[in-house]
């Protein structure tokens, strides 16, 4: 299938007083139609700059990209027609109403029946009660919904969401997740979103691109990235010595490694959930008393830490 986005060696460097800073370095990737892709990384990793380049706001220093069939450098207008960008800051005038902003966007895109189109977005994004109030009176979550509605009004081939849930409270965040999920279900839209929340990428994305210091350091589905990192860990707390217990579970199918340490047994395995009952039975048969059990799956946090050597919340 022809990709909706094909970026080749996309690079952007900025001149500062202390020299040239590479914000994005030789980033290449593809996005298939209908995919939801997450750009993941700490602040300063190059997520926003990558998005700004792909949405024509920033000119790449090197490299190129084709977005929705339009070359970024040669046909910026074509790219702009086919994309929606929801920037971190939003993009609405404080004294304008949601209806004003949606109408303006519909007219910019030369949509037929702009008023009806605006009303449709108002309904879809639960803005009916707010439609004629100045945007400055809206809450953060309400304004974010409006931003997404504006970005989607022309049913773009690609929607870029730059940190869509940054600064939202947990209920608004959950609501925004639901809108993003609906988006793909209803419109099969291709979405590129940036986030530094691993749980967000895990919950919403088919694939994550992990950026660090402007470089693409990994690219895969959240599940596979986690699997690549390695094993689930089943931790068993014992009343007695771990020695006998280690012998009892060592031969079970699916077990990759067993570490006994005092009263604790740590079992590395591919799928801890499947193994739990067998471990308990084997220990029981060997008269080992079990005090407790704990299953740990690696999180994307662990993946990130393993790939970059630092956690996502650290600034780079």
């Amino acid at each position, binding site marked *: 299938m022809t990709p909706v986005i094909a970026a080749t060696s996309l690079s952007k460097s900025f001149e500062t007083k202390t020299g040239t800073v590479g914000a994005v370095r030789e980033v290449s990737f593809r996005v298939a139609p209908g995919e939801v892709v997450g750009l993941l990384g700490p602040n300063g990793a190059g997520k926003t700059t990558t998005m700004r380049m792909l*949405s*024509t*706001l920033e000119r790449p220093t090197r490299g190129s990209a084709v977005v929705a069939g339009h070359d970024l450098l040669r046909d910026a*207008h074509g790219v*702009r*027609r086919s*994309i929606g*960008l929801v*920037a*971190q*800051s*939003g*993009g*609405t*005038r*404080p*004294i*304008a109403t949601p209806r*004003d902003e949606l*109408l*303006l*966007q519909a*007219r*910019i*895109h*030369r949509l037929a029946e702009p008023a009806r189109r605006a009303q449709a977005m108002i309904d879809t994004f639960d803005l009916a009660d707010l439609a004629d109030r100045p945007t400055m009176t809206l809450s953060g979550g309400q304004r974010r919904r409006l931003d997404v509605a*504006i970005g989607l009004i022309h049913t773009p081939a690609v929607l870029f969401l730059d940190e869509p849930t940054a600064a939202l409270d947990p209920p608004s965040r959950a609501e925004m997740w639901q809108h993003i999920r609906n988006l793909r279900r209803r419109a099969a839209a291709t979405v590129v979103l940036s986030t530094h929340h691993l749980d967000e990428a895990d919950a919403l994305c088919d694939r994550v691109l992990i950026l660090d210091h402007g470089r693409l350091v990994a690219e895969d589905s959240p599940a596979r990235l986690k699997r690549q990192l390695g094993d689930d860990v089943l931790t068993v707390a014992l009343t007695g010595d771990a020695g006998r217990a280690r012998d009892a579970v060592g031969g079970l199918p699916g077990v990759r490694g067993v570490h006994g340490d005092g009263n604790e047994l740590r079992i590395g395995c591919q799928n801890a959930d499947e193994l739990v009952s067998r471990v308990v039975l084997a220990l029981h048969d060997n008269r080992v008393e079990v005090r407790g059990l704990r299953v740990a799956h690696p999180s994307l946090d662990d993946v990130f830490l393993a790939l970059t050597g630092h956690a996502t919340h650290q600034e780079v």
Partner: protein
Amino acid sequence: MHTLQDIGVVFRSELGLALRNRIGIAIGLIQPFVYLLLFGPLLTQALPGGRNPWLFFVPGLLLQLGLFGTGFAGFNLIPDIRSGFVERLRVAPISRLAILLGRVLKDAVVLVIQAVPLIVLGYAFGMAANPFGVLASVALILITGIGLASLSYVLALALPNEWLFAPTVNSLAIPLLLLSGILLPIDRGPAWLDLLARLNPLRYVVNAARALFAGQLGTTVYIGGLVAVALAGISFAVGSRLFGRRTA
């Protein structure tokens, strides 16, 4: 063609917001109204006999309206850049020219809308102005408004921070106002003052408006018109360059 449509889209949206702010438009009129009511009657005595003081004074007040109303247009640009609105337009498939020109045209049209009650009041006070001349002045005001709004955007974009904007506009507007002789005929002052005033483009515009109000079509009008067009063209060109650089 597309560019014209784009300019129209931005203009329409911006004007809609501006017109909703009726209080803002009315407040902008207070200053010239106060001058008209409290200073106008004095002029009747001060001016040389035989001249209709309102024909002299009302065009000057229109310029004052432009300097202290349209001159502050740039004040609204900074929040729109900061809120991401300008960037939203830059990501949209719309002519780059339209983003700034649509705004500037809105500012110029608001100036014309504010000029109407001032002219009507002038007539009520006994200003015997030529109606066709007044209509032609409206075009002149529109063009001057484009120039003043663009200059205001230049200031807003060039100044290092927004707190400097209001004092800077004030300190520029007052000498420009005085040097265009809106209160008293400047050609009757000392030679150095007259010379200084000749460097002020707005003086020619006011003189042209006065001539039009008096129904005299001649060199003064042509020069004033040309100066207004040049001011608008140059200011807008500088403004869009700065705008492009600042928001790139």
